[in-house]
């Protein structure tokens, strides 16, 4: 790993602090409030998701027009583009069931810990288990594919 700029971690930390404060301020760190949205009783969550998108979107489109590379990493400015495949749809369905059941998603769960919600550790433990399970299965498949091609 190359040397990091001395301001790299402080800037990432500051971004996380503002991000987490925003999640707590919007009450997204409370699963109950997310569930009220999903039960169509309070549509405030739409303002959080799309409010955040608009602010980030302005930066994603404006900053690359102003300069080419980020000062702390030399990384080229780009946008978040992921290719579409069946996994995107399947993952959306599985995530949707989990989110609908509990009102928790990763970022909001970390923020929930910050507001003192220690029972959320059950949810965070679950997320790590789920992430590990899918990683284990996909690693097995990837390794098998490598073996198969090596045998040719």
């Amino acid at each position: 790993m190359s040397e990091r700029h001395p301001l790299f971690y402080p800037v990432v930390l500051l971004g996380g602090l503002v991000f987490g404060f925003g999640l707590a301020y919007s009450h997204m760190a409370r699963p109950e409030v997310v569930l009220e949205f999903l039960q169509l009783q309070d549509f405030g969550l739409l303002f959080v998701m799309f409010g955040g998108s608009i602010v980030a979107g302005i930066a994603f489109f404006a900053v690359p027009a102003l300069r080419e590379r980020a000062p702390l990493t030399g990384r080229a400015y780009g946008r978040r583009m992921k290719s579409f495949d069946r996994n995107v749809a399947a993952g959306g369905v599985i995530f949707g069931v989990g989110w609908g059941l509990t009102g928790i998603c990763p970022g909001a769960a970390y923020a929930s810990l910050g507001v003192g919600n220690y029972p959320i550790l059950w949810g965070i433990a679950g997320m790590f288990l789920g992430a590990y399970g899918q990683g284990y299965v996909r690693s097995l498949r990837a390794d098998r594919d490598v073996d198969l091609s090596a045998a040719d």
Partner: protein
Amino acid sequence: MLELLGTSLAELFPNGISRYAIGGVLVGLGVVIVYVGTGIIAGASTFLESTLSYVSGQSRFKQYRSSRDWRIVFTLGIIGGAAVYAVLFQGGIWTTEVQWWRLLIGGVLVGIGTRIGKGCTSGHGVCGVASASVTSFVNVAIFLAVAIATAQLVMLAGVAP
């Protein structure tokens, strides 16, 4: 007419709008701070796999080794920022009434779903949508529809909290 509009707004947003709008702008601002400084577009769910790379040698997790350090810093920031809110505005800790088994089972599904689906509410829902990514629009439409249907079923089944 204005009164009618006021009534329906109060029904759609029983807790008002400012809390959500201000919070959302701050969430976006957090993403922007990291982006402007580093060029990195930070989501919250990759932290799960990147952190697992410390304890697992599986090939799936290895690919996140280069980002695992800053993802921990970002996540500690999220926890810290929420703690600042709790101290300034909440006056003590807040805990959920949602039962532990719901959190655990839902958490497992969230962990699988975000990793297979290449993102979560922040990755696709905020950053992907902000990038005008069609993949993210599709993922968000699917997870919103499925989550609303699931929450309705849970409510109908009388599971509370």
